[in-house]
């Protein structure tokens, strides 16, 4: 699984960090999403899917 983020779309709401804290973080300087782990382990899949569905800006996608 490969996670992609679109920092231009992100509105910094932080839902992804709550959903999958091992995969997502927010940049210190502007609160915009940052990827901690672009290729997370399968065990993270449910959490990443949750982050995708809760992201208000459709800024996260997953490719196989």
């Amino acid at each position, binding site marked *: 699984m490969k996670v992609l983020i679109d920092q231009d779309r992100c*509105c*910094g*709401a*932080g*839902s992804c*960090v*709550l*959903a999958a*804290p091992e995969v997502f*973080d*927010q*940049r*210190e*300087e*502007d*609160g*915009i999403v940052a990827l901690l782990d672009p290729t997370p382990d399968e065990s993270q899949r449910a959490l990443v899917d*949750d982050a995708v*569905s*809760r992201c*208000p*800006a*459709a800024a996260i996608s997953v490719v196989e």
Partner: protein
Amino acid sequence: MTETMAAPPFPMQRQCPFHPPQEISDLRDSAAPISRMTFPSGDEGWLLTRHTDIRSVLTDSRFTVRNRRFLFAKNQQDPPPMRRGMLLSMDAPEHPAYRKLLTREFTVRRMQHLRPRIQQIVDEHLDAMAAKGGVVDLVEELALPVPSLVICELLGVPYADRDHFQSVTVDLLRLDTPPERRLAAVEEFNQYLAVLVRTKRLDPGEDLLSDLIARADAGEELIDDEVLVSFAFLLLVAGHETTANMIGLSTAVLLENPDQLDLLKNKPELADKAVEELLRYLTIIHLGLQRSALEDVEIGGHLIKAGEIVALHVSGANFDPALLEDAERLDITRQPVAHLTFGFGPHQCLGQQLARMELRVVFSTLFERFPTLELAAPLAEIPFRSDMAIYGVHKLPVRW
């Protein structure tokens, strides 16, 4: 095109103080999830009740947040030109540019750093409540002062001024405030904040407002005094009243659902999940959100014409069986779902991580400290805030 039905007049009465009105669930589940509606203002428009439809409007740039008329204004009057920096009434591309000035202040991590201070504030208020004893109003002792003090400290607004900003907030949120009074309240508050900004410039503190003033004075683009006042207005009003009502209403619903309360008492580590479920279940923005179409848009087989208002019944959406099973049941062990209590799309609540943090601290502490807490009046006598734009309880008498 699908046949269009008219919804009953807005707002509708609730049968249970903790559930959306039955008509909303009926419209969503059977008759007409997208229906025509006449608003109290006299405007004709649309009411949307399904989770997917509402999410799609909130992420569709063909809808604007500008030119909104309050759902509850009976006398039509176009709102005054909006001040720069008032995020709630800006569209892209201005909105994200201004919002970005603030996002770093409300990250998950920043809010985690605030946790010990929030805990201290909660503990102090619970101590004071314990010392008082007898029957106390939980709104006055805990629900309102905790978030007010937190946002005052964070922003750098003197807590001693709370009577002023709380009375302004009440004027803004009462559904029957005459439009002139609403405008006057906004004006009064803007003046107070403009003075505060000038004072802080001379005597800065360790707070968000001082920080923004310093950024403005260092030449950072977009920030000036008008914007500073707008930001302070928004953060102060949105930062205390919403969380205060979540605390009051959540306590009431937990006390009325002893099975759920027992779960929380036995496992305080459930507090995070409980908070997410309470946010979904109680949806204090009970009248929903509002957008207007910038051009003709088709949704679910209905043609929404340019200029028409769309009311988005977020509370109905949070009970949508398509979003989750058994939505009518409060279940604090549920896996969090993509509820719409903080809105969705680019305007999703900026302060949501702060709200979550405050609620988590309160609900991992309150029942540990007062395990025998109970309502001191029958539910029928609790004054629910059907008369306000933000739902909750006006008072919550409790004892232990």
